[in-house]
């Protein structure tokens, strides 16, 4: 297990290294002087010179890259061209918002997806199954942003029970924060739950026809015990799916934040692209990719933990 974690972490590091090169080269791939690009619109000569100095933009590319990495590790990700605030400060401020949104969405997705998946696998071929698989297919086919608009239409415009948009910090007013997060989290979690439901269903169906479930049945165990046997081995699938869906979740968060005007990472990134705020784009993409790789690593480790065959490899025998 230790060896596995080590090997897997090393692979993640390599991926991060290569990804950071891509982010680094992205800015350089823009036409024109990178110093001008990083300085934003109508910069003065002093700003340009400062940026040129800070990132060593006159040096050859490998040196520039080393410099970029060094600056990044010191927490220096450049200055936002829009409001002259350090990018790192902006990211630190926006990150918790997105983390809250995605965590809530994962909870929603797991709660709905896993229970619906179990229900439809256990009641395969019955009406429960058809309703669940039908809704699942629909959930897969509906884009987040449309679901968001419909949710606003129904709950905010027609029923007037929840606010249509806006954000209140968790620290400022927890109740209002949750009230404003309900719709976004539901919208973001729905798509996820559809995927989780489908995968849970097929994994559990596969496990329920496995030989060891027949063994459980031959022991006189009840149907619910049998299902628990199968479920234990389907968990790994759920974890894997969650890992695979992480990219879709981040993409969905970008859209959801845009619709509900939530000042998170996604809205930050899109706004930055629309206003050509390159330092912010660069910083946000780098942090997102890093987070993504790290969470994927954690998913792999969890997966290994759930699977005794992997967990114990090398430990005994």
């Amino acid at each position: 297990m230790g060896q596995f974690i080590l090997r897997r972490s090393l692979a993640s590091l390599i991926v991060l290294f290569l990804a950071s090169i891509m982010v680094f080269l992205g800015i350089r791939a823009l036409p024109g002087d990178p110093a001008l690009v990083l300085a934003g619109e109508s910069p003065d000569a002093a700003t340009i010179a400062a940026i040129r100095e800070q990132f060593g933009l006159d040096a050859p590319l490998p040196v520039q890259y080393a410099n970029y990495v060094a600056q990044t590790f010191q927490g220096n990700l450049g200055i936002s061209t829009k409001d002259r605030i350090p990018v790192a400060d902006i990211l630190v401020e926006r990150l918790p918002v997105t983390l809250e949104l995605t965590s809530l969405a994962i909870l929603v997705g797991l709660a709905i997806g896993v229970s619906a998946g179990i229900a439809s696998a256990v009641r395969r071929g019955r009406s429960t199954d058809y309703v669940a698989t039908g809704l699942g297919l629909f959930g897969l086919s509906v884009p987040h942003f449309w679901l968001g608009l419909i949710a606003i239409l129904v709950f905010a415009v027609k029923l007037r029970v929840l606010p249509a948009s806006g954000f209140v910090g968790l620290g400022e007013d927890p109740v209002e924060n949750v009230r404003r997060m309900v719709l976004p989290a539901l919208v973001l979690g729905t798509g996820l739950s559809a995927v989780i439901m489908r995968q849970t269903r097929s994994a559990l169906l596969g496990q329920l026809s496995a030989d060891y479930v027949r063994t459980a049945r031959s022991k006189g165990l009840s149907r619910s015990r049998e299902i628990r046997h199968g479920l234990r081995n389907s968990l790994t699938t759920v974890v894997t799916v969650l890992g695979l869906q992480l990219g879709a979740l981040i993409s969905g968060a970008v859209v959801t934040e845009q619709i509900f005007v939530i000042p998170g990472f996604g809205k930050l990134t899109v706004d930055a692209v629309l206003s050509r705020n390159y330092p912010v784009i660069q910083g946000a993409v780098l942090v997102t990719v890093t987070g993504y790789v790290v969470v994927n690593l954690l998913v792999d480790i969890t997966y290994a933990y759930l699977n005794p065959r992997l967990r114990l490899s090398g430990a005994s025998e």
Partner: protein
Amino acid sequence: MSLLEVEHLRVEFATEDGAVIAVKDVSFTLEAGEILALVGESGCGKSVTAMSIPRLLSGDDLTLGGSVRLNGVDLAALSERQMQEIRGKEISVVFQEPMTSLNPAYTVGHQIGEVLRRHEGLSRRQATARAIDLLELVGIPDPRRRVQSFPHQLSGGMRQRVMIAIAVACQPKVLLADEPTTALDVTVQAGVLDVIQNLRDSLGTAVILITHDLGVVADVADRVVVMYSGRRVEQAPVQAIFSRPQHPYTVGLLGALPARAVTQGGRRRLTEIPGMVPPPTSDPDECQFHSRCPRATSACTLERPPLGEVADGHLVACYHPGPGGHSAR
């Protein structure tokens, strides 16, 4: 009254290509402490016969006929909940594939203890203690350590012993062993069979042993039922089967028929891929073996030969019975 009475058992599966009758009118009895062997090629219905006893076959596409009585109680009449009380306690099963029949996510101790907690109400701790005893009983060395093992840490033979430990944990009256040694190395097979035999001797468990290996039958069985194409074609005490086989199919299994037929009908196992080619969906009134039988005459295709007694306890369904190799034509 016998311990187990199977009468006119019929098992039918609905498949995409029509109904498959896997078991046709099979009857037999089983006495306490007896080892009965069900013999035949792959697909002859012997496993299906056995699995239908504890009602382990399931699905909407399944039709069962006939009756199975345990101590006179008709199992078909029991509710699923009552049946659960019987499974693992009165009737238990050892499956063919030790590699896949244990849950990879739980320790063997848990999987053995589970059946004890279910039927004997033991606590987790008591169940583990009993599991250790059971592992010792089935001949697993260092049971105290092994009880913590996961299935993948054990060899195939060990796993099959664990399966047996699970099956006998509650001292069942009937043990169904479905090809318990087929997936194992030859060297391990004898050990597993010994365990089953010892259990019969010490606990008085009756055993239905499903196998296509006549060597195994000769070693451990008391009585033999030979099945062909879902039907019982011969039934006899074990000595009689080997010394005076009557049905040409049995004779073929024993290797007395010419070489060609032996490779077709003898030891060679046909590859098993479920549900691909249309399996026999009809049940014509004829001897189903006639196309492969060296003794076949026109009578064999006119009417199905009835099961008749040729000697005490020796039944055969054939118009041309006898131990001979070729002839009778």
